[in-house]
């Protein structure tokens, strides 16, 4: 798996994702600076990492989508190549139109860093194949703008086409209001594009991919990509 981790000014989970791809998954992994116009030759997977690109000063992800590298990322996606956005990376993907919807300020207006319960809704996607459908897992979130919003039509399509990847759930495994940390519509934590090659999620799989960090639920997210 040849992986490119895009570094925007203000990215801060770039090194974390790199660590997991390179040292846990043992993939050939490279950082790609946002001012580059092409991806390294032979790139299979592009990851847009978490962080605060451009300080998130206008809207999360709004400025990063104009970075030079984003045209190459779009072409890669158009060719069917895999693109993943985690947290700020998810926000950049929605801002750039590679994924539907938008991510707004959390319901309680606070930044939240906490483990959350998730239910795997679609276990057939490029990033969820190593999970079982309906499986309950835990991953940490760390964001202030993670409230997923989309128009009714979009939501209907996402649900109808099985493009909701993960949903926030409570201790009983139910996508309830109580299990919803940020107010996301339909408790959506992650989605897939219509072609199935672009995925975005707010939780951080790279933070729970090693035993020493207390959980390996995120490791299968990465394993799915090579399954």
């Amino acid at each position, binding site marked *: 798996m040849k992986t490119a981790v895009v570094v925007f000014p203000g990215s801060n989970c770039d090194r974390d994702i790199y660590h997991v791809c390179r040292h846990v998954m043992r993939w050939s992994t490279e950082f790609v600076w946002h001012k580059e116009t092409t991806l390294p030759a032979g790139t299979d997977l592009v990851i847009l990492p978490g962080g605060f690109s451009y300080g998130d000063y*206008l*809207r999360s992800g*709004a*400025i990063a989508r*104009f970075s030079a590298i984003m045209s190459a990322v779009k072409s890669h996606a158009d060719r069917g190549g895999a693109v993943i956005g985690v947290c700020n990376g998810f926000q950049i993907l*929605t*801002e750039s139109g590679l994924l539907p*919807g*938008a991510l*707004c*300020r*959390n*319901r*309680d*207006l606070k930044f939240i860093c906490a483990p959350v319960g998730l239910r795997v809704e679609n276990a057939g996607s490029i990033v969820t194949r190593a999970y079982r459908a309906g499986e309950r897992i835990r991953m940490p979130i760390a964001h202030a703008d993670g*409230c997923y*919003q*989309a*128009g009714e039509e979009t939501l209907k399509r996402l649900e109808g086409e099985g493009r909701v990847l993960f949903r926030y759930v409570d201790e009983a495994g139910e996508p309830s209001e109580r299990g919803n940390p940020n*107010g996301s519509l339909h408790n959506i934590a992650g989605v897939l594009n219509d072609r199935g090659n672009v995925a975005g999620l707010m939780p951080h799989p790279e933070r729970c991919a090693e035993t020493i960090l207390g959980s390996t639920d995120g490791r299968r997210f990465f394993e799915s990509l090579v399954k």
Partner: protein
Amino acid sequence: MKAKVYVTLKNGVLDPQGKAVEHALHSLGFSEAGEVRLGKFIEVQLSGTDRAAAAERVRQMCEQLLANTIIENYRYEIE
């Protein structure tokens, strides 16, 4: 010239900041305050003298960057 751009959340999109301000106004005794919606106000200094052309450029700025039209509305004035 100067453009004044107002970006607001669309009706129906959750506005927790607006809610918080509304709540605070009520607890300060401003019971007449109804729904509060929070938005952004952006000032852009513009070169050139053609107001119509400027307005079109500002519209493009809003569409491309200043607003996320999935969740936000915008309007602007040119002075």
